[in-house]
C-alpha cells in the first residue's frame, strides 16, 4: 500500500519519488565494495548500482550467498537466483561469523520501519513490547549488520510515522544517544553514514551525530521533509539538490523491475 502511494506520488516529472530514492541510494555504493544487502529497497538499489556504475560490487545476502549476481530482484533473501551466479554459497552461521562479524563487510545496506534522529532502527514493535499496537517482523540480520559493517546505509520512505522522536524499540544500534556514545559499545563498524529517503538525503552531524537534511531530491521541499519528520529536523547550511536520475539509471532500474515483476507473476504449481 506504500507501494501504490509512492507510485502515484511522482515528483511531477517522468520518474517516481521511489525511483529517485533507489537511484540516489545506488549512487552511494562505490564500485568494488563488499556490501551486505537487506531484501527490498536496499537490494533494489544495490543491484541497480551493480548494473550501472559499480559492476564489481561484491553483494552478500544473509542466506549465505557470497558475490551474488541476481539478474532479477530476489523476492526473498534466499531466492535461487542469488545462489545461481554467486561466487560461493556458505551456511548461515558462516556468513554471519566468518564474513559479517569478521569485519569483511564495507557497507551494510538496511531498510527500517522506524528510525530516530541518531539512526537507531526499530523493526520489532510499535507500541509496548508486551502488548504491541503493531507487531513487526523483528530483528533478522539487522542488529549485527548495524554493529559490524564498516558503514551503514539506511533507506526508507520519509513519513512521520517512520522518522520518530522516540523509538518504541531499539532493534539495531545507529549512533545510539549521539556523540561518541556508540563507540562505548565496542562495535567495529562506524554506524550509519547516510539515510536515503524519497524526499532527500540525511547525513549525521560530525559532532552530535544527529541526522540532518543534506540534500533534497528535485521537486521536494524543506517543508515537506520537516513535515514528514517526527523530530525537529535540522537542515544543512549548504543544502544540495540531488541530480535527477539519468536516462540510463531509469532504463536499467525499470528493466530490472519489469523482469522481476514477470517472475513474481511466474511460478505456479
Amino acid at each position, binding site marked *: 500500500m506504500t507501494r501504490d502511494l509512492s507510485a502515484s506520488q511522482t515528483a511531477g516529472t517522468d520518474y517516481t519519488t521511489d525511483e529517485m530514492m533507489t537511484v540516489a541510494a545506488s549512487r552511494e555504493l562505490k564500485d568494488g565494495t563488499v556490501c551486505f544487502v537487506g531484501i527490498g529497497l536496499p537490494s533494489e538499489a544495490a543491484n541497480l548500482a551493480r548494473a550501472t556504475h559499480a559492476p564489481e560490487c561484491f553483494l552478500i545476502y544473509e*542466506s549465505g550467498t557470497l558475490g551474488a549476481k541476481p539478474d532479477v530482484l530476489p523476492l526473498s533473501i*534466499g*531466492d*535461487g537466483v542469488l545462489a545461481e551466479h554467486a561466487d560461493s554459497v556458505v551456511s*548461515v552461521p558462516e556468513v554471519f561469523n566468518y564474513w559479517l562479524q569478521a569485519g569483511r563487510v564495507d557497507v551494510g545496506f538496511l531498510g527500517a520501519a522506524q528510525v530516530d534522529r541518531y539512526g537507531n532502527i526499530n523493526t520489532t514493535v510499535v507500541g509496548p513490547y508486551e*502488548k504491541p499496537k503493531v507487531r513487526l517482523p523483528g530483528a533478522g540480520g539487522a*542488529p549485527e549488520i548495524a554493529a559490524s559493517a564498516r558503514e551503514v546505509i539506511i533507506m526508507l520512505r520519509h513519513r512521520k510515522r517512520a522518522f520518530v522522536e522516540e523509538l518504541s524499540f531499539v532493534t539495531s544500534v545507529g549512533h545510539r544517544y549521539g556523540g561518541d556514545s556508540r563507540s562505548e559499545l565496542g562495535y567495529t563498524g562506524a554506524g550509519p553514514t547516510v539515510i536515503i529517503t524519497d524526499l532527500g538525503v540525511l547525513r549525521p552531524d560530525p559532532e552530535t551525530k544527529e541526522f540532518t537534511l543534506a540534500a533534497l531530491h528535485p521537486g521536494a521541499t524543506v517543508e515537506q521533509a520537516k513535515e514528514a519528520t517526527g523530530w525537529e529536523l535540522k537542515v544543512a547550511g549548504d543544502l544540495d539538490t540531488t541530480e535527477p536520475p539519468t536516462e540510463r539509471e531509469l532504463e536499467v532500474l525499470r528493466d530490472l523491475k519489469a523482469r522481476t515483476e514477470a517472475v513474481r507473476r511466474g*511460478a505456479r504449481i
Partner: protein
Amino acid sequence: MSEMTTLREAVAGLVNDGDSLALEGFTHLIPTAAAHEIVRQKKRDLTLIRMTPDLIYDQMIGMGCARKLIFSWGGNPGVGSLHRFRDAVENDWPRPLELEEHSHAGMANRYVAGASNLPFAVLRGYVGTDLPKVTKTIAPVRCPFTGEELMAVPALNPDVAIIHAQQADRRGNVAIWGITGIQKEAALSAKKVIVTVEEVVEEFEPRPFQIVLPSVAVDAIAVAPKGAHPSYADGYYDRDNAFYEAWDPISRDRERFAGWMERHVLDTSDFGEYLQSIGKEGALR
C-alpha cells in the same frame, strides 16, 4: 541410522505434544509438507523454533499448535506481515503465544552450540539494543584471555528437527545443495531428526555447494515431492511467488484462513492431495 517411512508415520512416531520443534530451511527447502502433517495430526503445545517462521509457522500458529515461538524474523518475505503470527501476538488468537526473539546471528550460533554439545555460543551483538531487555536468553560473557566482554546465547537442542532435502540415497544419506542455510546445524542440534526429500536416488552426483548428512545423523526419511512448496527446491522447482502474495489476503481474515486450512490441509490426507486441492482452486481463493 535413518529409516525410510511415510511422513504420517514419522510425525506420529517422533513428534509429541509439548515438544520443541525446529523446522528449518532458510527460504529455500522449507518443510511445508511436514508442517501440514503436524497440523493434520493436531499436535499441541509445541515450542516452535525457526529463524524465519514464514508461512508454515503462520499456519501452525493460526491452527493452535504452538504455545511458544523462538525466532529472529517473522514476516512474509517480499510481501509483508504474517497475519496469523500478528493476530496471536497482538490479540492472543487463537491462544496466547510466548515469544523468545533473537537476531539471525544469535539464532544461528545457538544452533551451532547445540550441534557442538556446548551450553552456549559467543558473538558480537545485542549490546545497546533493547533485545536483552525482553529476551532472557542473552547474557554477557568475558574472554578469559583479553578480558573483553561479549554476548553469550544458550544452545538450542530441539526435541525434533525437521528439514526438507532434495535427495536421499539407498543407504539413507541425505543430500542438500544450493542455499543450505542452517539445516545442517538444526539437524545436528536436535534429539531426533526427520527429513523429507524430493526423491530417493541410487547415488548422489556432485552438485554446487552440496552437503551430505550421513544416515547415522537422521532418524526418519520420508519422500514428499514438492514438499517445500511454496518455497523452492533447487534442481526441482521454483519458488511460487504468487502463492506468497496470495497468502496475504487468505491469512488476513480468521474465518477465511480457517476455511482454507480445513479445505486444503485438514480435509486432505497428504501433501499430494493438498497440492491437487490448491491446484484446483488456483491457490488464490
